[in-house]
C-alpha cells in the first residue's frame, strides 16, 4: 500500500528537489512505499487532508494544530535549530523605521501562509492595526512580496524569516526588516497519521541517524537542515497550546 506524504506549501521552491530526494531516502529507510504529493496552495492541501489522503506531512505549526487535535496525527520529528519566525520588511528607502509609525490604510503584501500572517498581524497590534484598517494584497510566493515592496505597490511585506534570508542578496539589499518575531518555540513538524503510526519509531531512529550516514547527510543538505530531532507528544501539545493563545 502506498502512503501519501506532503509538505506544507510554504517552503522555499528551491527545496522542492530536496523533498523528492528525502522521500526516496525515507522509503528505503523504513521500507514503505511513500508517494510525495505537493499541493499548490494551502486550500488544496487542506482538502486532501480532510479527505484522508495524507498519511505523512511536514506541516506548518498552524496546520499541525488541526492535524494533531482533530485528525489523530502524532509528532515524529522536527528540524534542529529551525524555528518559525516571521519578518515584516519595507522598501529600504521607506521612511518607516518601526511598527508604531505605521498608520491606518497600510498596504500589506502577504501570502496565504496562515502562521506567518498570524504572527505578522500580531506584530502590527502595537500600531493599532488589524484586518479592518489595513489593505492586504495576497500573493502566491514570497518573491512576489519582495517585488511589491520594490515597486512600492505595498508598504510592508510579511515573510517567513527563513524564506526572507534565502532571497537573493540583490533583493535583500533593497529591503529592510522593521521587526522580526522572537518566539523560539514554534516549528514545522513532521507528523504521521493513524494509518502509518506503527512506523513512528522506525522513522524516528532513521531520521536521527541521518547525519551520521553520508547519503543521509547529503539529503539533509538538500533540505537545508542540520539534522532531525525527535518531537514528543507534550512538546507538540505545548506548541499547539501556544498557537491557540495566538489565534483569534
Amino acid at each position: 500500500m502506498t502512503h501519501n506524504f506532503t509538505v506544507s506549501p510554504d517552503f522555499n521552491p528551491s527545496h522542492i528537489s530536496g523533498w523528492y530526494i528525502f522521500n526516496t531516502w525515507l522509503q528505503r529507510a523504513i521500507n514503505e512505499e511513500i508517494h510525495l504529493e505537493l499541493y499548490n496552495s494551502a486550500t488544496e492541501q487542506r482538502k486532501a487532508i480532510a479527505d484522508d489522503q495524507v498519511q505523512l506531512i511536514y506541516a506548518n505549526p498552524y496546520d499541525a494544530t488541526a492535524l494533531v487535535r482533530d485528525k489523530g496525527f502524532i509528532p515524529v520529528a522536527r528540524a534542529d535549530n529551525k524555528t518559525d519566525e516571521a519578518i515584516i520588511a519595507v522598501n529600504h528607502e521607506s521612511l518607516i523605521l518601526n511598527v508604531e509609525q505605521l498608520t491606518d490604510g497600510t498596504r500589506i503584501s502577504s501570502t496565504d501562509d496562515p502562521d506567518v500572517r498570524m504572527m505578522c498581524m500580531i506584530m502590527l497590534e502595537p500600531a493599532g492595526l488589524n484586518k479592518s484598517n489595513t489593505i492586504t494584497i495576497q500573493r502566491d510566493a514570497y518573491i512576489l512580496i519582495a517585488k511589491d515592496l520594490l515597486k512600492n505597490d505595498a508598504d510592508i511585506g510579511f515573510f517567513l524569516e527563513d524564506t526572507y534570508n534565502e532571497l537573493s542578496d540583490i533583493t535583500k539589499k533593497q529591503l529592510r526588516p522593521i521587526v522580526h518575531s522572537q518566539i523560539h518555540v514554534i516549528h514545522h513538524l513532521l507528523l504521521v497519521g493513524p494509518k502509518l503510526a506503527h512506523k513512528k519509531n522506525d522513522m524516528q531512529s532513521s531520521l536521527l541517524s541521518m547525519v551520521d550516514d553520508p547519503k543521509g547527510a547529503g539529503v539533509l543538505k538538500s533540505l537545508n537542515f542540520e539534522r532531525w530531532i525527535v518531537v514528543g507528544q507534550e512538546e507538540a501539545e505545548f506548541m499547539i497550546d501556544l498557537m491557540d493563545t495566538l489565534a483569534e
Partner: protein
Amino acid sequence: MKDMMPDDISGEYQEHMFSYHDGTHRKVLFTNIETQLPEGSLIVSRADLRGIITDVNQSFIEMSAYHKDELIGQPHCILRHPDMPAAAFGDLWKMVQQRNKWHGYVKNLRKDGGFYWVYATVIANIRNGDITGFTSVRRRTSRTKINEAETHYQTL
C-alpha cells in the same frame, strides 16, 4: 512569597500591602518606571492547576527582572501590580477552568519596582480530556489600548 526589598528597587517607590485571594500577604514596592516589551517578542509561562509557575521563557525572565529560580514554584500573582484591581482578573480563573480562552490588558510588576503593559491570553492545557495546567502568552499592545485599560481599571 517574600516581601519586596528596597535594595532591589530602582528609583523612588511607594508601598502597597497585598492580600491575595489565597489568603497570603505581601508587601510590594512600586515605581513609575515603565519598560516596553520589545516588538516581536512574546512572554510565555506555564502554570500548574493552582497558578504556580512551572516554566517561563527568556522574555518572561528579562521583563520580570527576576532570576528563573526566583520564579519557578511561585504563584503568578508575583507579577500583580497594585494598579490591577482584583476584578480585572475576576473571570480569568472561571473562564480557563471552563476551557475558554481568557484575554486581558495587564499591568505587571517587576522585581525592580517598575512595570510593563501587555495583552495577555491564558488557556487551559487539555491532555486526554483533562486540564493539566495553564499556558499564558503576553504580547505588546498599543498605547491607545493601554490608556483605555488604565482608565477602565481606575473605575473598578
